[in-house]
């Protein structure tokens, strides 16, 4: 068994199963924060799948895309948490105004 075959038949299925498990939590996720974290985790596992694919097909160019995906994952987490917090703040202000009235 060569390295490529080992990666293709053993490592990739393990990663696929973990993506499936994370996706179950992404669908279930009781709060929106769970979904944001699940999205971040899905993209991070996607980076490893890209790394494995770049070994299997002997194309080191795929790693550039992994770098960009990591960037997008971080940006999306930051943006989601920023706007969630902002929305919460707006709701709090509204509540305060109503109480003052």
């Amino acid at each position, binding site marked *: 068994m060569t*390295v490529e075959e080992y990666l293709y038949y053993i490592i990739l299925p393990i990663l696929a199963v973990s993506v499936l498990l994370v996706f179950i939590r992404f669908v279930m996720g009781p709060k929106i924060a769970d979904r944001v*974290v699940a999205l971040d985790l899905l993209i991070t596992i996607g980076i*490893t799948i890209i790394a494995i694919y770049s070994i299997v097909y002997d194309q080191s160019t795929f790693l550039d895309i992994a770098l960009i995906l990591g960037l997008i994952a971080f940006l999306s987490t930051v943006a989601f948490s920023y706007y969630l917090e902002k929305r919460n703040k707006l709701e709090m202000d509204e509540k305060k105004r109503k109480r003052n009235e």
Partner: protein
Amino acid sequence: MTDALIIILSTLGAIFILLAAVGFLRMPDTYLRISVTTKAVTLGVGLILVSAAIYFDELSVTSRVLAIILFIILTAPVGAHLIGRASYFLGVKMWDKSVMDELEGKYKKFSHKLDSGDDLKDEEETEEEKEKG
């Protein structure tokens, strides 16, 4: 030799990622889930990327892989802290069996500022008075 190294590193990384996914599914509380994603997954991704660097054995690939690992190590804690902070403000409940919540009563509800003093309430009241005035 390199084949064995690649197989060992990628297997370890895949096992770490699988355990993180299982933990992410089974943990009872949002904050515990966030802690899973920052630690185990970072290690797993790093190991698999190192195995890719060993496979190609070129300077350009190795530097790219190091850049990815450094970026993930830098950004994972920052993102986890931000989303944890946001979920704390959103009022996400902790697990029933959690021992303590050290932030309880230390975050101002309206201005989102951290304060450890006892005059927390007074300041919020004065802020409200200012708005009224």
